[in-house]
C-alpha cells in the first residue's frame, strides 16, 4: 500500500485570502473612533470660524479707535497752501486756526567746510606746523594734539571724529594735481554756526579751513513776526501744528497754514467702520438662525451679537443722538450702510455734535472699542481663550484616537495569529483525512475487493 505521507509545511492556503482582507478599501464602519473624528472635524471648523471672527472684531475695534481719534481732535486737520515751501508734519490742535508764513529767506542747512589747501599724501603729509590745533564749532573751542605719527590728514580726521562734538570729518581725494587730498568737515546739525580749525592757535594761528559755508538758519515770518530757527522742523512756534520749511519764498510770497474741520476724514472713518461692522455681522450670520453652523448658541456668538447691538443702539446727547442722525442706516438684514447725503447735509453745528457723538477713547461711540478689543486681543482676548480651549480638547481627542489605534493594531496582530494557527491546523487535519481516506480504501479493498469508500 502506498499513500501520501503527512506533511505540515506551515504554508497556509488561506494566506492570499488574508492579504485580501488587509488591502481591501472599505467604507466607514460603525466604530467608536468615528465619533472622535467628528468631534475633531467640528473643532477645526469652530477654530476657523473664531479665527475669522477675531480678524473681523480686530478690524472693527481699529475703526472705532480711528473714529475716537477723529472725535478727540474734533475732526480738525492741518493743511498748507504750498506744501513745496511749508509742509505739515503733525497736527494735534483741537481749535480751528490759520497762520501765514512769509518771507522765507533761508532754509536751514549745516555748516560744511574743506581744507584751504590740498595735501600730497593723506597719511604722511603734515597738516600742522606744531601738532597743536583748535576746532571751533559755534562758541566752543576743542583742542586737538597730533603726534609726529598722526600729523597728517587721516590723523586729523580721526582726531576730529573722536572728539564726538557733532562734527564729522573725512578725507576727500580729488585725484587731480600734486596735492589731491583735502579735509572735509561738516556739522551734524543744521543751523548757522562758526566752523573752523586753527593751526598753532597760540602762535601763528593759521586757519586750515575755507569759510564758504558756516551753516544757515531757517528764517521766515509767522503772521509778520520774524522767526529764525536752526532746524527746518518747526514744532514750537504754532500750537498744535508741526511743520517743515522746505524752500524760500519769492518776494511777497506767502504760505497759509490752517487748522480746520475736515468732513472727509469723518466720512472715510465712518465708511471704514461700516465695512468692518458688516464683516463682523456676516461672521455672525453664519452661526445664527435655522441654518446656523457649528457655533450655534455659543457664548462667544452671543457676546459679539450683544456688542454689535450696543453699537447700533448707542445714544448721544447732542443734535446727533443716534446712528440714523449721522447717516448710519441698518437694513432689515442687519447690514449697515452710510448715507453720505445725510452726512454731507449736516450743518456745521451738527457736525460738531457728530464729533461729540463719535467721542473719544473714553467716551462716546469710540469708547465702545474696548468691547471689541476684549474679544480680539491676541494674548488674553475671549476669542484667544476659546481658541486655546479648542486646542486642548483637540489634543485630548488625538490622544484618545491614538489609544484606540494602538488597541486596534494589537487586536489585529492577535487575530491574525489566530487565523494563521487555524490555517495550519486545517492543513494538518486535511492531510490526516487524506491519509485516512487511503487507509479506508486499502481496508475496503482487502475486505471486499472494491475501491469504493465513503468520503
Amino acid at each position, binding site marked *: 500500500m502506498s499513500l501520501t505521507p503527512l506533511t505540515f509545511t506551515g504554508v497556509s492556503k488561506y494566506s492570499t485570502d488574508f492579504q485580501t482582507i488587509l488591502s481591501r*478599501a472599505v467604507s466607514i464602519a460603525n466604530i467608536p473612533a468615528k465619533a472622535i*473624528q467628528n468631534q475633531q472635524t467640528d473643532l477645526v471648523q469652530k477654530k476657523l470660524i473664531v479665527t475669522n471672527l477675531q480678524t473681523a472684531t480686530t478690524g472693527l475695534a481699529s475703526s472705532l479707535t480711528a473714529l475716537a481719534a477723529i472725535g478727540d481732535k474734533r475732526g480738525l486737520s492741518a493743511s498748507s497752501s504750498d506744501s513745496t515751501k511749508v509742509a505739515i508734519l503733525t497736527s494735534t490742535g483741537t481749535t480751528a486756526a490759520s497762520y501765514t508764513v512769509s518771507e522765507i529767506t533761508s532754509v536751514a542747512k549745516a555748516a560744511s567746510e574743506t581744507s584751504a589747501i590740498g595735501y600730497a599724501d593723506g597719511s604722511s603729509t603734515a597738516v600742522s606746523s606744531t601738532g597743536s590745533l583748535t576746532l571751533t564749532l559755534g562758541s566752543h573751542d576743542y583742542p586737538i594734539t597730533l603726534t609726529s605719527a598722526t600729523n597728517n590728514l587721516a590723523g586729523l580726521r580721526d582726531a576730529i571724529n573722536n572728539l564726538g562734538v557733532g562734527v564729522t570729518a573725512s578725507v576727500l581725494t580729488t585725484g587731480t594735481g600734486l596735492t589731491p587730498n583735502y579735509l572735509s568737515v561738516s556739522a551734524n546739525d543744521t543751523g548757522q554756526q562758526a566752523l573752523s580749525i586753527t593751526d598753532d592757535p597760540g602762535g601763528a594761528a593759521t586757519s586750515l579751513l575755507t569759510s564758504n559755508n558756516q551753516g544757515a538758519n531757517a528764517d521766515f515770518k509767522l503772521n509778520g513776526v520774524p522767526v529764525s530757527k536752526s532746524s527746518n522742523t518747526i514744532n514750537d512756534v504754532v500750537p498744535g501744528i508741526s511743520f517743515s520749511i522746505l524752500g524760500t519764498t519769492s518776494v511777497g510770497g506767502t504760505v497759509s497754514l490752517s487748522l480746520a474741520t475736515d468732513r472727509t476724514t469723518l466720512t472715510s472713518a465712518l465708511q471704514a467702520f461700516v465695512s468692518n461692522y458688516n464683516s463682523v455681522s456676516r461672521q455672525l450670520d453664519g452661526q445664527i438662525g435655522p441654518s446656523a453652523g457649528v457655533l450655534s448658541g455659543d457664548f462667544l456668538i452671543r457676546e459679539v451679537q450683544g456688542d454689535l447691538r450696543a453699537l447700533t443702539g448707542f445714544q448721544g446727547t447732542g443734535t446727533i443722538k443716534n446712528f440714523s442722525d449721522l447717516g448710519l442706516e441698518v437694513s432689515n438684514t442687519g447690514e449697515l450702510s452710510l448715507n453720505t447725503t445725510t452726512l454731507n447735509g449736516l450743518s456745521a453745528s451738527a457736525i460738531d455734535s457728530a464729533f461729540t457723538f463719535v467721542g473719544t477713547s473714553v467716551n462716546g461711540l469710540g469708547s465702545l472699542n474696548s468691547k471689541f478689543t476684549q474679544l480680539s486681543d491676541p494674548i488674553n482676548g475671549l476669542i484667544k481663550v476659546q481658541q486655546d480651549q479648542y486646542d486642548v480638547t483637540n489634543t485630548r481627542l488625538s490622544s484618545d484616537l491614538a489609544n484606540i*489605534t494602538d488597541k486596534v493594531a494589537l487586536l*489585529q496582530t492577535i487575530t491574525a495569529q489566530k487565523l494563521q494557527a487555524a490555517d495550519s491546523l486545517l492543513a494538518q487535519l486535511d492531510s490526516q483525512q487524506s491519509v485516512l481516506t487511503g487507509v479506508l480504501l486499502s481496508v475496503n479493498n482487502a475486505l471486499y475487493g472494491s475501491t469504493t469508500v465513503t468520503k
Partner: protein
Amino acid sequence: MGKFEIALQQLELAQRELVAANPSDFESLERLGKNRGAAINAILELVEDTEPSIDQLERLKRIHLGGILSVERIRGARQAFREELARLSQQGQLLAGYQIGSKSEASSGPDSGSNGGPATPS
C-alpha cells in the same frame, strides 16, 4: 488484542479528544491534531500486514466522518476570526487614514479630506 485494534482504539481516543475540544482554541487543537496524526500514522504502518474486521472498517469510517465534521467546525470558528480581522482591518485603515487627514487639515484647513485615503493598518 491485536496491534491494529490497539492502534485503532488510540485513534478513536484521539478523535474523541479532538471533537471534545473548543473549536476556537486552535493552539490546543494543534496539539490534539498531532496526537491524532500520530495515531493515524500507527494505523497506516499496520494496515498492510493486518486483515481488519468489518467492524474495524466501520469504526475507521466513523473516525473519517468525525474528522470531516471536526474540520468543518474548525472552519466555522476560523470564519469568525476572519470576520473579526476584517473588521479590525477596516478600523485600522480608517484610523490611519484619518490621522493622515488630520495632519493635512492642520496645515491646509478643514476642506481637506478628513477620511483620508486607503492606508496600511499598523
